[in-house]
């Protein structure tokens, strides 16, 4: 057991969708759920990610109203009122000495992560096209992390920006090491996993052992497609990733101590495979994780395998996997779950949540043994985050 188990308080679930933000709240037993208001927050706006810093209660929303470009909204009163960031994430201007002529424009803010526990006012934002931004005033103003955005090798990492993944080139999975505020890790789709030990000033790829079967050199140093990278919140150096090419666990001792990835997805049932988008870690047990496999064969349908949705759980760091589908449709259910649309809460009896591309919110309050549909008929769900208060 790693980390301090939370008391059984209330739970809040933030559901970001293509048409707004839905906020679900429940009591300690999580038996009765209610939704904020009669209409969603930010009705009509694309909400890529909605998050809360449980240490401060500040909520941030990465939103984009169709024609009006991307921005970040923040609430410091539990979602009652929202205010736009005074300076949303924006790349350096073209032609300035610092920007070396990159001159990109943020298309959408895709991922938000609260900073280290010792930095309660710090947030990180990943954007599309690839970019990283930091706020040190609790989301009011955002600054370019130039060590990443202006890195001399950045264009090599990206490959051909015109051939980005379907939703655009995404900087995602922003992880802050709970044991080191200066240690950051992120995923680029595509580009690979990168980490920094100096708060973003310098970066190095971390893709050894991870296959990239779509590249001429499948063992390339970068160019991979991590879908979701999760650093354990309480156990040092425990990192898992769901990649375009399988499920992996980081092994810092591998490759002569340089560190690399071990494909734990090879232990999944062959008929299911190990392709998907999200990976969720048990908040207290570093060996327990969940994935939501999808069909990654032929043309990559990106739907539940055979139309039979299921979560797969491992309790031994990926050595064995168990199917968990009780309560879900048994057939003809062709949804999938996006990379930040599956999560765990922090209750003693850990709750799991996922949102589907067809607008359903599902939850389990016994670690995946039984699933319940909390909401139907929402818009396409992009993100689900749960917090135990």
């Amino acid at each position: 057991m790693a980390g301090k188990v939370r008391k059984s308080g209330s739970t809040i679930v933030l559901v970001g969708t293509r048409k707004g933000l839905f906020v679900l709240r429940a009591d300690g037993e999580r038996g009765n759920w209610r939704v904020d208001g009669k209409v969603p927050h930010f009705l009509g706006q694309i909400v890529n990610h909605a998050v809360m810093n449980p240490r401060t209660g500040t909520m941030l929303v990465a939103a984009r109203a169709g024609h009006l470009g991307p921005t970040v909204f923040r609430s410091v009163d539990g979602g009652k009122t929202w205010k736009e960031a005074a300076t949303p994430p924006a790349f350096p201007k073209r032609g300035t000495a610092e920007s070396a002529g990159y001159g990109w424009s943020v298309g959408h803010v895709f991922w938000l992560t609260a900073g280290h526990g010792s930095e309660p006012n710090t947030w990180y934002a990943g954007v599309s096209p690839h970019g990283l931004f930091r706020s040190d005033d609790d989301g009011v103003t955002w600054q370019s992390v130039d060590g990443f955005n202006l890195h001399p090798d950045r264009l090599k990492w990206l490959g051909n920006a015109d051939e980005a993944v379907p939703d655009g080139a995404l900087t995602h999975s922003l992880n802050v090491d709970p044991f080191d505020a200066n240690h950051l890790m992120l995923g680029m789709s595509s580009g690979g996993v990168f980490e920094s030990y100096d708060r973003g000033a310098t970066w190095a790829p971390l893709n050894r052992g991870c296959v990239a079967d779509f590249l001429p050199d499948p063992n390339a140093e970068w160019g991979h497609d991590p879908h979701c990278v999760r650093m354990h919140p309480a156990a040092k150096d425990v990192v898992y990733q769901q990649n375009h090419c399988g499920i992996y666990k980081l092994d810092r001792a591998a490759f002569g101590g340089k560190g690399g990835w071990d494909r734990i997805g090879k232990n999944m049932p062959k008929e299911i495979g190990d392709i998907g988008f999200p990976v969720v870690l048990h908040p207290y047990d570093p060996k327990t994780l969940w994935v939501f496999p999808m069909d990654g064969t032929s043309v990559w349908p990106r739907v539940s395998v055979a139309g039979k949705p299921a979560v797969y759980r491992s309790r031994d760091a990926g050595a064995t996997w168990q199917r968990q589908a009780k309560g879900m449709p048994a057939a003809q259910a062709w949804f999938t779950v996006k990379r930040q649309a599956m999560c765990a809460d922090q209750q003693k009896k850990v709750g799991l949540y996922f949102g589907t591309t067809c607008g359903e919110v599902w939850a389990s309050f016994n670690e995946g043994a039984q699933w319940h549909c909390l909401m139907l008929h929402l818009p396409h769900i992009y993100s689900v985050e749960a917090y135990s208060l």
Partner: protein
Amino acid sequence: MKVQLPTPLVDYTNGVRYVAASGRTLDELLRDLDRQYPGIRFRMVDEQEKIRPHIRIFVNAVLERRLSAALDPAHEVLIVAALSGG
């Protein structure tokens, strides 16, 4: 001069669609709007000083794409968030 805003931008103006702003150029006009309604300019012009896709600005009913375009106090400016998508 008189500026008509599209409905997606009236969150910045407390629901008002017709506002007054001044400037010798379109860029100055949008900066004056931003001074009065903080944040509104970035919804129309990105960080590289490009008018965002689907934003159309008409000066006396003529489409204007140049932020450097000269304005006259008698001009009327219409800002449109063009319809697209589903």
